[in-house]
């Protein structure tokens, strides 16, 4: 029970961080970015490669994994989305490009980093937590702590800093923002790199607890998106809560009911939620004008 909860919450935090990535990019650019899940895998496996193949110290390897994820996110933005914007591509083409981007990053990761499921050592070896008779890997504590810290950091960034205000301005209207002298392309690039870093950190955190492999990027991408829709794509906190609910729910269904139908049940619930609250749990209704 406790272990299931811990696993569920940790997976949920990964979904939550991916969902937050969706929400951030959406709020700053209006783009639904299906590459978001890939950065989790890049962060996890990038760290693994640097640690085991390049023999970096663990801390530096984690840093390198994050930089890899952030750089790929920035490169995808610059090389794919900006040219599409320049050509006034319709939104569905941009969306498609991110789906394709996610689909291509998986085999590329297999080819260039590793085709297998890999595991990282725990961040602090021997750190376990005892709760009512169960031993839980201390890694889960880091996942939760880092997840909450990033949620707080991102919320502050969006609401309190000038950069955050400019990012939200770009999300509200690219054209108006341009007229006010803001560069939506640069804003989008910054937020993509931040999303890559957040995803990368999620990957470096979860890989010691549950192994990672290249193909998981798409799963994280889809579940992260579902979580974001669940909580509200335009609300970073909503997306985050959606992720935790989704991960926890999935873990309990897996453990106590059947692992075969967890997706059916979770997605079914999503439909119910969206019918009752079309903008997600915390999403705000779009107003006219």
């Amino acid at each position, binding site marked *: 029970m406790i272990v299931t909860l811990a696993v569920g919450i940790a997976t949920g935090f990964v979904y939550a961080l991916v969902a937050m990535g969706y929400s951030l990019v959406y709020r700053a650019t209006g783009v639904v970015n299906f590459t978001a899940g890939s950065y989790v895998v890049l962060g996890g496996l990038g760290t693994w490669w640097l640690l085991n193949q390049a023999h970096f110290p663990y801390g530096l390897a984690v840093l390198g994994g994050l930089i890899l994820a952030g750089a790929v996110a920035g490169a995808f933005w610059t090389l794919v989305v900006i040219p599409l914007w320049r050509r006034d591509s319709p939104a569905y083409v941009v969306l498609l490009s991110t789906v394709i981007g996610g689909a291509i990053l998986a085999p590329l990761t297999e080819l260039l980093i590793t085709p297998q499921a890999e595991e990282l050592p725990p961040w602090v070896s021997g750190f376990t937590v005892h709760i009512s008779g169960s031993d839980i890997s201390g890694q889960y504590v880091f996942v939760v702590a880092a997840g909450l810290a990033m949620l707080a950091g991102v919320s502050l960034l969006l609401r309190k800093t000038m950069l955050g205000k400019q990012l939200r301005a770009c999300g509200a209207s690219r054209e108006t923002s341009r007229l*006010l*002298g803001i560069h939506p392309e*640069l804003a989008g690039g910054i937020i993509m790199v931040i999303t890559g870093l957040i995803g990368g950190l999620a990957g470096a955190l979860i890989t010691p607890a549950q192994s990672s492999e290249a193909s998981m990027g798409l799963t994280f991408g889809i579940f992260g998106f579902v979580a974001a829709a669940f909580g509200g794509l335009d609300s970073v906190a909503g997306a985050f809560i959606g992720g935790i609910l989704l991960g926890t729910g999935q873990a309990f269904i897996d453990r106590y009911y059947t692992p075969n139908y967890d997706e059916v049940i979770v997605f079914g619930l999503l439909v119910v939620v969206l019918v009752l609250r079309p903008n997600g749990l915390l999403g705000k209704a779009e107003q006219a004008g």
Partner: protein
Amino acid sequence: MTAVSPLLAASHVTKAFGGVVAVDDVSLAIGPSTVHGLIGPNGAGKSTLISLLSGFTRPDNGEIRFDGQDVTRVGPARLARLGLARTFQAATPLAGLTVLENVQVALTSKYRSGLLSVLARTPAMRREAKALAAQARELLADFGLLTDADRPARDLPFGKLRYLEIARALATRPRLLLLDEPAAGLNQVEVDELAVLIGRARAGGIAVLLVDHDVSFLFSICDQVTVLNFGKVVVSGPAAEVHGSKLLREAYLGPALPADPDPPGTESRRPEARHLEAQ
């Protein structure tokens, strides 16, 4: 005026849509710190001209210079950065941002240090941020929007939304401000306030190109007025001269005045004509 080189100079600008020549060989010069009015009946080409001058539409012919620089093929975003701001007839508040934030983002974007430097938070930048917040509040106070500072911008009532649009345009620190029918839909009190605010902008060294239907409002604050009709400049010059001009009346009422130029029912739609009749 002749000694001062114009801030914005359009020469022989033409734009046709299909077979319709919306703007036909129009030349226009706006000097620094002047309020220049653009007036004409519906369909005279005012909106097309504004859209040409602000870079949203490219002319078929002619040249547009801003501060001596050829900007004929320059887009609206770059023109905005060069110092040409505009407002739209339909206000475009940034939804999801508060009233204060709408002005703040416009203020900061002028700091060419750009987005990236905002990530680093040095004490000097924090001071700058404080100064910016103060500036934003000052601008809001000018427009009577201070009490609404923390409201979501999209919740503002119509008149205040229009003010916010103008305040935000001023926040980009333009040298030329294009106002597209800023008085439309405002009540008389608001129109009077608007006139004061435009006068203040001019006193602050900003040139204004003002498009409006409200003839009395326009002539009350403009230094120069250009009258358009059928895409051509009918008359252009100092406001007082244009006001007395027969050509202005003709543009609105037609050269051959029928006994009753405004049949019942059209009156409410043509306040400008009534104003001219009253003279």
